[in-house]
Structures are given as structure tokens and as C-alpha cells.
């Protein structure tokens, strides 16, 4: 009888221990996994902006493995759909949400979900649980402009642009300055599409630019439609925000691209460790956030060498494209010699540099 009780006791102890171990293991596993979500303005495989962000998401998933559960919502429109999307993501237990388009998150929305961390690309609103992040694409766009300038014979380059806002204006300016560095006096013609992602309009804009005399095309919009058109008519093309060479293997020159992954990883890790703090991240060519996509067959060795030299100067800080003297379209001196534009200036830029043909008002 006594023996039986001790056996029973041993079994009981064993059961309790296993249960306890299982329970703690369970909570440990729970603590270690975090749910992170991304919201895209276009399809996740758009071949441009949203796909670059999705590559960043996959980078996080790969780096953290089972510690993180990532998800995304695509083709999201501002307004009720966005609010419903955020509500459903919060309901699903996502702790950190990245909004990859301007206007997705506001202080008001962040205040509504105080226990969720929000991160918005390209915006300026900050709150306790709302961060902003972006990077100096102007530097790499300048370099991609150099490739466009070198490829142009007539000195007329077409540039398809979405909205007449400071972000796009500074990108167009950087592109123009880069093109003029390799093709002095180059003219950059703009066509506004008034949409981030609209393949039909982008293709039409590319056609109009070609018939207006452009012999090289570039873009600040998200889809590879202009590139597919360029490929069909044998015109060199500079993409934007993602390596889209597969859409135009012969026409592809290069593109300024973003490397979102490392930033996303550091933020998700911070959220897991509880060290996440609201901030304003502006990545650069120096920390590898912005870079140039691999060159296409149309870029000559001498152009590559020129670009490499400029890139080294950018990294070293001995060159900056928005340093004076800079003139606007009417020939007025906007930035005096020895002066530099700050990030704040860049976020409010509303004038186009000399040689750009188009209105800064859209």
C-alpha cells in the first residue's frame, strides 16, 4: 500500500513537472513570437515600390524564422478600407504595422491603438507609437540619372512622374542633375500621371515622351509599364525603387533602389525586445539603405567608372548633388555657392532645376 502511494506520488510529481515544463515552454514560445504586418498601396508583386517592401518583409521573416509571423495587405485605398484593414490586423494580434504609403497612418489612428506600434514610410507625422522612415533616394537617383544622360544622344530624356509633391520634385531634380553631369545641357521632360501605380497611364506617358523627342526614358512611378514600352521600341530605360530588369532586359540601364529589409529587421527586433522608440529614420547610400540596381547591357564601362567615382564621393561626403550653385527653370539662382539644402529643405522643395521641362505644380 505504502509502495503504491509512493509510486502514485512519483507519477503525480512527474505529471506536474511535465505539465509545468510544457506550460513554461508554451509561454516562452508565446513571448518569442511577434506578429508584424505590412500594408501596401499596390499589389505585393507590382515589380516596383510595393514589391521592394515585400522583399523587406521576407527578409525579416527569413532572419527571425519562427520568432515572427509576418503578413501583408495589398491594394489598400485610403479611407474606410484602410481603417478596416488596420482594425483587422490589430484584431489578429499584430504588434507592429508598417504602412508603406504616405497618408496611411496619422496621429489620430496611432492614438486609437496605443498598444500597437506604427511605422509609416515617406511621411512626417510622429507620435509615441508612430515612427516615420524613408531614405535619401535623391543620391542614388542622381547616379541613375548619370546613366540616362550617358545613354542619350539627343540630350532629351523623358521622365514619368506621379504627383507634383516635394518628394517627387526632389527626385526629378536629382535625376536631371545627374543626367546633366554626363550629358551637359540635357533636357528632362516630365509627364505627371497623378497616381503612384497606374500602368496604363505610365505607358501612355512614356509614348508621349518618346514622340516628343526623348531618346531615353526614366521614371519615379511604381510599375514597369514604361520599361516594357521602352523595350518594345528599343529605347534605354531607367527604372525606380526595384530591380525591374526582367521586364526590359535589353533597355534596362539601372535604377535607384531601396533596401528596406535591414531597417525592418531592426525595428521588429526592437519591438520584440521592448526597446522600440518612435523616430524619424532617413537612410542613405552610406548605410546601404539606398543603392543602385545592377547595370543593364546599355551602360558602357566608362559610364560605370564615372558613376563609381561619384558614388565614392557621395559616400565620403565630398560630393552632394543639392549643393550650390543651383538654378531653377527660369534661371534664377536658388542655392548660392557654398550653401547646401538640408533634409527639411528637401521635404519642402517646390521648384525644378534648370533644364527640366514641366511644371512643378503638376
Amino acid at each position: 500500500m505504502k509502495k503504491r502511494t509512493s509510486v502514485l506520488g512519483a507519477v503525480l510529481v512527474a505529471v506536474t513537472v511535465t505539465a509545468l515544463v510544457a506550460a513554461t515552454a508554451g509561454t516562452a514560445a508565446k513571448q518569442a513570437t511577434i506578429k508584424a504586418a505590412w500594408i501596401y498601396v499596390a499589389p505585393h508583386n507590382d515589380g516596383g515600390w510595393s514589391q521592394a517592401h515585400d522583399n523587406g518583409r521576407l527578409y525579416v521573416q527569413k532572419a527571425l524564422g519562427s520568432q515572427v509571423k509576418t503578413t501583408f495587405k495589398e491594394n489598400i485605398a485610403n479611407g474606410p478600407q484602410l481603417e478596416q484593414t488596420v482594425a483587422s490586423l490589430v484584431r489578429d494580434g499584430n504588434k507592429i504595422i508598417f504602412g508603406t504609403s504616405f497618408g496611411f497612418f496619422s496621429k489620430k489612428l496611432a492614438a486609437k491603438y496605443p498598444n500597437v506600434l506604427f511605422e509609416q514610410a515617406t511621411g512626417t507625422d510622429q507620435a509615441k507609437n508612430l515612427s516615420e522612415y524613408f531614405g535619401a533616394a535623391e543620391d542614388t537617383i542622381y547616379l541613375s540619372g548619370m546613366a540616362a544622360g550617358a545613354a542619350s544622344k539627343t540630350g532629351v530624356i523623358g521622365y514619368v512622374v506621379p504627383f507634383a509633391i516635394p518628394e517627387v520634385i526632389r527626385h526629378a531634380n536629382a535625376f536631371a542633375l545627374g543626367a546633366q553631369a554626363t550629358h551637359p545641357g540635357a533636357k528632362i521632360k516630365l509627364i505627371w500621371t497623378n497616381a503612384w501605380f497606374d500602368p496604363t497611364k505610365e505607358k501612355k506617358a512614356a509614348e508621349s515622351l518618346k514622340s516628343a523627342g526623348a531618346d531615353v526614358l526614366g521614371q519615379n512611378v511604381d510599375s514597369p509599364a514604361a520599361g516594357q514600352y521602352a523595350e518594345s521600341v528599343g529605347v534605354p530605360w531607367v527604372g525606380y525603387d526595384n530591380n525591374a530588369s526582367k521586364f526590359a532586359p535589353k533597355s534596362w540601364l539601372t535604377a535607384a533602389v531601396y533596401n528596406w529589409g535591414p531597417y525592418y529587421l531592426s525595428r521588429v527586433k526592437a519591438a520584440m525586445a521592448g526597446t522600440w522608440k518612435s523616430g524619424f529614420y532617413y537612410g542613405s547610400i552610406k548605410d546601404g539603405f539606398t543603392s543602385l540596381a545592377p547595370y543593364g547591357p546599355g551602360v558602357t564601362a566608362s559610364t560605370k567608372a564615372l558613376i563609381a567615382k561619384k558614388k565614392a564621393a557621395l559616400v565620403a561626403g565630398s560630393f552632394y548633388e543639392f549643393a550650390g550653385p543651383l538654378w531653377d527653370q527660369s534661371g534664377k539662382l536658388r542655392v548660392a555657392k557654398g550653401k547646401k539644402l538640408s533634409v527639411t529643405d528637401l521635404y519642402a522643395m517646390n521648384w525644378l532645376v534648370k533644364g527640366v521641362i514641366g511644371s512643378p505644380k503638376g
Partner: protein
Amino acid sequence: MKVRIERRLTQPRWLTVAVPVGSLTAAFGLIAVVLLATGHNPAATYRDVFEAAFAANGALTQTLVNATPLLFTGLAAAAAFRMNLFNIGGEGQLYFGTIGSAAAGLLLAGQPGPIVIPAMIAGGMAAGAAWALVPAFLRAFFSTNEIITSLMLNYVAGLILTYLIFDSHSYWRDSESASAAVFPVGKALSDAASWPTIGSSVVVPLGFLIGIGVAIGIWVLYARTRFGFEVQVIGDSPRAARYAGMRTRRKILAVMALSGAIAGLGGASQIGDFRHTLDADPKGLRAYGYGYTGIVVAALARYNPFAVVLVAFLLGGLQNAGSTLQGPDFPSGLVGRCRG
């Protein structure tokens, strides 16, 4: 023996119910096949849809957010289709409603709600009606096809929205705040211009209640008044109506204005209930296509205003479920298929 297909003179009552129910059942069956083909369990998907649209915490509130604009555009379409007048311009008339009501709200900034809100409603209805009168006038006096003209004017209305916010420093555009410098937005309306809501666990926007009122109004108009009777006669047989001395032109103008005013009221509700600023972003209001979905709502409801309320609610739920459903393993294109 010969089989002859003849048009029924009167429709039996059961058919008005059986057709929409039958088409919905067929649609669910078809989608189930698509879901199976793409490796999703149809039963589980439908359960998720129901959960996300109607059962989950806060789901009904979100469904009403989607249903409200569909209610207005559905009623706008139904009101015109009753006369065989195919107003496809609900989308553009809704945009004009947002322009008109935002103008009223901005002009009366600082005034209390009881003054601002009726003014926004009036502004939205007037602007929507005015935009609808363009194709109405062309149809009444020049016999142009209103399907084409009203449809094309939707794109014009969209471009006008773009112009007001992106391409000009119009009255509606915010050119002062810091975020407006980064991306063009409309001026924010005052808090008094936010329409009140009813309920706390399920939040019912004022616009939805107004929409139900409009549905009752339309039913009374068409079933109980001389105007409504004449409209139906013109719809059935314009020639007979003319012999009977009915004024067809006037009716065309009146019905299109009514239809446009209802769509415009939907625009006012977008401003007052939800957006509180003129939204010209192509990834904003214009991405939803409420005007076009409204045509589907009207057709499914067989132009019956009370059925429009029900169908708008169901489709609103479906749209709401769409944003919950999609994700890495459920592409947005498939969501679109299911909604269609």
C-alpha cells in the same frame, strides 16, 4: 408541338424574390469552385467572410461604413432605372456631392452642427443634381444616349477633383499644414461638421439613417404619387405616355436630378460621416467605385428601394470581409473575384 417563348405580361410575386436569391446561390456555388481550384476550403472561407462581415467584434460597424455609400448610389441608380433612364453617372455625381458638401462645410466653419450639417446635405444634393442635369439635358433636348454621356462625365468629375486638390490652390485645398506640404490634401472640416452617430456597440452613421429615409421617400414617390405613376408609364412606353399628354422632357430632367441628388447626398455623407475633407487621392475615395457598385446593388434589388437597403448592407459586409480575408495566402485579386 411548338414551344413559344413569350414575355410575361405580369410578373408573379415569387419571381421577384427567386431571381436575386437564385443568382446569389449560383454565385456562391461558382465561387466555391474557384476557391477549390485555388486550394482554399470554401466552407471555411465563407465562415470567415460571415465572421468578418457581421459577427466579429466591431464588424457590423465597419460593414455599415461600406454599406452607407452603396445605399445612396444604389438608390440613385434605382430611382432613374425605374424610368428606363440609365444613369451610370452615380460615381461622378457622388464626387460632385463631396465637392458641394465640403464647400458648404468649409464656408460655414465655426457655425454649430444644426446649421452646418443641413447645409452640407443641401450642398451635396445640389451639386450632384447639377452634374446629373448635364446628361439629362442632352437626353431631353438632343436625344443623346444618357448611358454614354453620364458614364463619360464620371471621368471628367474625377479630373475636376484632381484639379481642385493637386493642380490648383483652390478653396478646398489645404496649403498651410505641414503634412499638406508633403502631399496635397483638402482642408479639414470643423468638428461641428462631423455628422453624429447612433449607438456604441454598433455605430450607425447618420448617413445610413438618412439613406433609409430616402428609400422610404422613393417608395412613396413611385408607388403613391401621380408623378411616380407617370414616370413608370414613360418607362414602359414613352409613346403611350406622349399620347396621354405626359411631359416626357420634364420627367427626364426631374428624374435625373433626383437620381443625381441622391448620389450627391452619398457624397455629402462621405464628407460628413467619414472623410471630413475633400478626398481627391486616386487611392482614396476614387479607388472604391461606389457609383458603379451602386448599379449592381440596384440591379440585384430589382429597383425596389427597400431591397436596395438590404442588398447594400450585404454587399457592404462582403467588401468589409474582403480587407480582413486577403493576405499572403489569399491574394487581393481573388477577393475581387469573390466580390464581383
